[in-house]
């Protein structure tokens, strides 16, 4: 295809992406270098019957005017990145000096909003992703050995948790594990602890969110693996059977190698999707015990006094995280692409 034709075909799609994805990233970067204006202070002299006193008051009109004229705020350089709400370099250093063990340091660092969110986001990503793959593969193998009649309905039911809106899915589970809901009260009876509440303890909240993550993503892995199982070549299977391989050995040495490329694909998609975990925290109302990077951004933007500077800084750090996460994949794809060309 000629360059010119290519250009005209891709133009509408490309301009949409440049205008609403590339430019906003630029705007986020500029915002991250600014902070909101401080209130304009004015010193006035109050003269009463007992003499004069100087008083500092907030000049509301001037503040409003300043904010109106320069909505970006004032230029702050990289200070947003280093402040307490983000990388918190100074705080971390003093914590490191004051804490006597690493566990102590980690506990103190968990009070810093950015590191707290990062800890949860990474834990969520790297716990949920492998579990999704294992569970998906197990279900796919199970469904594959079912009679054909039952496979369709099983796939239908399995698609539900994946396709349902994340906020809705998490709400549905949240209402069930509520201490007055069906699962919550059953757990209380099972554990013999009438005060057990999944919302109260940070550990249980994290587990609950990860269970939701696995529940909603396992179907994706299941469907992809199931489709892969339909294309397992017959010949190596038969050869393995003739050689006396047990069922487990056939799965281990024939089926799993065949599914490997699919596992890579699922891992890539899951890493991207789990890294932006956000809706479950809103749905489970878990912000007291678990926040993610995306949730922090949402929180800064919400309400009357949106902190654009803080939100933008967290966004830049999140984008940086995504790029780090994707780099190995991009390098691999680049090599594949070059191999195909030559």
């Amino acid at each position, binding site marked *: 295809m000629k360059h010119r034709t*290519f250009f005209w*075909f891709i133009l509408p799609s490309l301009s949409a992406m440049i205008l609403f994805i590339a430019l906003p*990233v630029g705007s986020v970067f500029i915002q991250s270098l600014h902070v909101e204006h401080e209130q304009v202070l004015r010193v006035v002299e109050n003269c009463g019957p007992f003499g004069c006193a100087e008083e500092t008051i907030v000049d509301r009109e001037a503040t409003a005017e300043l904010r109106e004229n320069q909505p970006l705020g004032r230029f702050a350089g990289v200070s947003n990145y280093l402040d307490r709400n983000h990388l918190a370099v100074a705080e971390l250093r003093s914590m490191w000096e004051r804490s006597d063990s690493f566990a102590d340091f980690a506990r103190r660092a968990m009070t810093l909003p950015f590191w707290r969110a990062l800890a949860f986001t990474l834990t969520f990503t790297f716990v949920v992703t492998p579990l999704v793959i294992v569970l998906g593969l197990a279900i796919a193998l199970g469904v594959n050995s079912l009679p054909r009649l039952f496979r369709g309905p099983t796939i239908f039911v399995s698609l539900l948790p994946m396709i349902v809106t994340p906020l809705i899915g998490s709400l549905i589970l949240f209402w*069930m594990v509520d201490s007055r809901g069906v699962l919550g009260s059953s757990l209380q009876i099972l554990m013999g602890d009438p005060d057990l509440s999944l919302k109260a303890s940070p550990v249980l909240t994290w587990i609950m969110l990860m269970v939701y993550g696995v529940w909603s993503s*396992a179907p994706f892995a299941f469907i992809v693996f199931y489709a892969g199982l339909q294309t397992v070549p017959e010949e190596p299977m038969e050869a393995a059977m003739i050689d006396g391989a047990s069922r487990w050995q056939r799965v281990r040495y024939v089926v799993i190698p065949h599914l490997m490329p699919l596992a890579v694909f699922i891992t890539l998609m899951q890493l991207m999707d789990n*890294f932006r975990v956000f809706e479950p925290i809103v749905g489970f109302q878990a912000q007291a015990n678990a926040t993610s990077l995306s949730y922090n951004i949402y929180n800064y933007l919400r309400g009357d006094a949106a902190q654009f500077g803080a939100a933008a800084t967290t966004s830049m750090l999140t984008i940086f995280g995504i790029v780090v996460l994707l780099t190995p*994949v991009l390098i691999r794809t680049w090599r594949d692409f070059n191999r195909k060309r030559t």
Partner: protein
Amino acid sequence: MAAAQRRSPLLVGISTALVLLWVVVAAFPFLWTLWGSFKVQADFFSLADWRNAWTGTFTTEQTGAAFTGQGYEGAWIQEEFWRAALNTMIVVVSVVVISLTLGTLGGYALARSGFRYTFWLLMIALVFRAMPHITLVSGYLLPFFEWNVWGHLPTAIIVLVAINQPFTLWMLHSFFLNIPKDLDESAMVDGCTRFQAFRHVIVPVMWPGVITTGLFSFLLAYNDFAVTAMLLSQQNQTMIPKIASFLGSTQQEGNVMFAVAAVVSATAPLFVLILFFQRQIVSGLTSGAVKG
């Protein structure tokens, strides 16, 4: 396969049990919420005994029947959920139509061009696809406030179309790769321009791929929370942010049931979608995988 007959009963038992367990885990929450949405709050959140939700003790006490439509009435009429449903319909239909139009043109071009920049465009699209939507939203808000376009449906639609593009491009790109090159090239030999070849030769055969991609565009627009919650004003809210705003006022008795009813109402279209398009959804999920 011959292996099926020789499998040990223990293994069959375990794998069947696993699948059965999964089916229950996947389906039970939905059935439970559907059932509970016709009860009053005291039954759905049974303070005394969870069996109340089954028998509907308080529902019978308060309304005289074992089932009640109070939640639905409150959500759809009193809280004007129909307005949100209407907005969702407008947003979703526009997003699907616009992003498929842009996506087919772009995806076709990417599939037919072998230059190095095609690869870079696809890679950039992959990075864009990975970007959390809320990070982009934080870039939109300030400019949109300044230009006075914040809060309107067209703004949200155009933003969702753009966010959708990377995915649409990837999917349609791999779909167009499967359509043989000879088809449009022979048309061009016969004297068609590239666009005429696309219009008369490719368009008639592209519908299966377009429908599958459209389903996923639909899901993205329908399921979105980050963009619609932050970019739409109160009266233009779509269903998902509306449900989130129900939660803010849970203190009032009965309000939770409005949210439950709204949640069930918003799940129903998705249920129907799977019912009719299960095959396309499955093939869409796997088509990306086959290409790697």
